[in-house]
Every structure is written in structure tokens, then in C-alpha cells.
């Protein structure tokens, strides 16, 4: 039987230790939809030394911006980012859940004023980091289902 392996990438980003099942959400966050000019590899439900299972996303010729990193941290606080340049790991770090988030998530409360046509960006205070629980600055409601509310 032929074995397929995901090959090392020359330049780009490897997002490792993604919470199992979250890889597709990560793709949505980094904007991988139809118009992608480079190779994107997704590994789902692979064995992990840290936890039992993990997801991994490799994206060639792309580095992530701070907003994307914040979003990944919120849905998968243990994810690690490996920035690859010329086949070498140029930088490696664990994502960091921010203290406050603004403009990257909607409030889960349909009755919240920020879900109406008001000229404000939803803003949250991070009350707990693992697992992330965010309190809306406006309506005070806690949001724990982050993945559903990321924009």
C-alpha cells in the first residue's frame, strides 16, 4: 500500500497542536476558501504527544497577522505557530489568548446592542483563558462558544 505523507514546506506557516476538530475553523479564520494561490494541507485527528489527538494546518507562502493569531488562540489556546523560511523553523511560539478582544468576534447574545446596526465593534474582556470565556463589554453576557461567533 502506498503511504501519503505531508511533505515539509519551503516557506509558510505550520499551525500545530490545534484542538482536535478545529482545523476547518482555523481555515475559515485564515481565509482559506476558493481563491488560494498556494498549497494548504490539513491533517485532522492525528496522534499528539501533548494531548491524545490534534489537528494540523500547513499553509505555504503565508504568514499570519496578529488578528488571525488572536482568533486562533481563542478557538485553540494550545496551538503552536511555526514560521518556516527556506525549510527551517524561523520562529516557533504558542499562541497567546489576549486580555481583551475587539472586532474579531460577535456577541452570542442576540439581544445585545452590538448585534444591531450601531457604529461599534463588539468588544470583550477575556475572563478565563483555558478554556476561553469572554464577557461582552456592552451587555455583560459570557460567550464560551467562541468558534461559532468568530468573524
Amino acid at each position, binding site marked *: 500500500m502506498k503511504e501519503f505523507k505531508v511533505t515539509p514546506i519551503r516557506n509558510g506557516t505550520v499551525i500545530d497542536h490545534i484542538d482536535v476538530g478545529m482545523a476547518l475553523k482555523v481555515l475559515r479564520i485564515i481565509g482559506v476558501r476558493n481563491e488560494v494561490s498556494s498549497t494548504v494541507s490539513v491533517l485532522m485527528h492525528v496522534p499528539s504527544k501533548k494531548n491524545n489527538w490534534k489537528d494540523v494546518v500547513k499553509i505555504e507562502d503565508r504568514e499570519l497577522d496578529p488578528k488571525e493569531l488572536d482568533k486562533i488562540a481563542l478557538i485553540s489556546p494550545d496551538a503552536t505557530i511555526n514560521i518556516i523560511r527556506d525549510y527551517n523553523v524561523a520562529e516557533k511560539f504558542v499562541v497567546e489568548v489576549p486580555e481583551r478582544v475587539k472586532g474579531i468576534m460577535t456577541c452570542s447574545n442576540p439581544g445585545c446592542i452590538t448585534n*444591531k446596526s450601531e457604529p461599534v465593534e463588539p468588544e470583550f474582556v477575556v475572563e478565563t483563558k483555558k478554556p476561553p470565556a469572554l464577557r461582552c463589554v456592552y*451587555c455583560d453576557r459570557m460567550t464560551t462558544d467562541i468558534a461559532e461567533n468568530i468573524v
Partner: protein
Amino acid sequence: MSGSLKGSDIVSIRDFSREQIERVLEVAEKMVPIARGDEKSSLLEGRILGSLFYEPSTRTRLSFEAAMTRLGGRTLGFDEPRGSSVAKGETLADTIRMVDAYSDVIVLRHTQEGAARLAGHFAEKPVINAGDGAGQHPTQTLLDLFTIRKEKGGIDGNHIVIVGDLKYGRTVHSLSEALSMFGAELTFVAPPTLQMPQEHIKHIETRGIRPKISNSLEEVIAEADVLYVTRIQKERFPDPAEYRKVAGAFTIDREMLRDASDNLVIMHPLPRVSEIDPEVDLTPHARYFDQAFNGVPVRMALLSMVLGGIE
């Protein structure tokens, strides 16, 4: 908020320190003769209250107007958005910017949660939250605390039984959190489907208070110093028969008060429907109409403090 309330927005009771609440209650006490009309005041003469009520309210709106008028100020605004620019689709942010230019302090009742916090971001003048959807209603909490303190001589150590719809009732969420700040003993009585949400219980426990949870008013009423009653709304029950059964079990009447202490005080944020039988109004326990009056001195205190008339 820290120290003086001058220029501050009053959005949530969580924004207050215990000292600030105590100061509001002290100032409110001094306002009582003016609120009754026994004394005159021109403390806020020439000041304008912008009063924006996006949904109906009787007590809150009228008591804010009474408070401003008793202190020599005036009120402008609307008590329903129909006929105003809001009906034409204006955002809250724009309405607030406009009223901010016309008044010295803004009182806002809105259908959406978080509306008062948003208004505070757009207004330079202080914004007082008069209820935002199912969210916060801090002036109600302050007048409830004022009533308990006045009737019982203090808040600490009193056993306060809160009964009714504890799941959706915004009044009881803010009140129970504030009471825990003052070290009151708390019991929550509700049908299991309408019990106090865990999030609020956890918040109360961070203050070192362990509230008791009960499904039976009869079992706890004898030990209560204050009985705080709220309405169980019919629309929370898909089955009308189930509603009647639950509502009946939590109705306060003379029979229910048989084992109550002589000094029991009964409060209700009003309006009531059938949860307190009118025969209870004639007992020495009933304080809900005094409580409604207390809205005036408490709101006078807040208006004068945020406008800097009193430190």
C-alpha cells in the same frame, strides 16, 4: 468608578464599590423631605435631563422626572420612539449624540442589552441606565437597597428571600449581587426551571456568601427578614396549566404569611399581577408602595451626584 460619581455613567451595579453605594443611600436619605414636597430645592436649577424611553415604563420614567423636577431641573425626551427620529431608523449612537448636545444628563431605557454602555461611549454627559432589555437596571437595585436599609436599619446579616422568576428577572440578578456585597444572607425560591442562573450564583459565592436554593416558599418564609417577590411571567410556560400550578404555589396571601415573623418586610419591584394578593396590602408587612416612592429620593441622589451638585 472610584470615589466621586461626578460625570460618571451609571450602567451596572457591578461598577459601584460598596462605599459608593453607601454614599448614594446616605444622600438619598437626605433627599426624602424634598421628594415628599415638604422642602424645596433648587440644586439642579437650569439643568436638563434628556429622558429617552424606547420601551414603556411607568415608575422608572415618572420617578426620574419627579426627581429632576423636585431638584429644580427640567426634563425633555420621549416615552416611546414612535414619532421621533428613531422611528425613521436613526441609530442609538446618533440619537445619543443629539440628546447629549441638548441636555446635561441622559437617562436611557432601551430594548437591547448593552444599550446604556454604548450610549456612554458616545455621550460626553453622564448616562444613567434605566433598564436595558434583560440586562441591568442599577437604579432599581439602589432603591431596593435603600428600602431594605430604611426598613431593617441595615443590610448586613438580614436574611433576604427572593422569590419568583429568578432566571430571567434582571432585577433579582443585580439585587442579589449587590446584597452579597453587603453580607446579606440569601435564599432563592423558584420552580427549578426558573432558578437563579449558575453564573450569578458563582458571582455571589466569590463574595463569601453561599445562597440557599429552595423550591418551597412555605419552608423558608418563617426565617425571612425580607421577602422580595417578583412576577412569574406567563409567557415562560408553554403549557397554561403548568403556569397556573407554578404561579399558585408562589402566591403570597395571608395563609402563606401565617408563620412569618412579625417584622417581615415584603417588597416587589412592581407591577404585580397576582403574585401578591391585595389583602396583603393591608398587613404591616407590605412595603412595595413605599419602595416605589423610594425611587424618587434615590434617583434625586444619583442625578445630583453625577451632575456634581453633591459630592
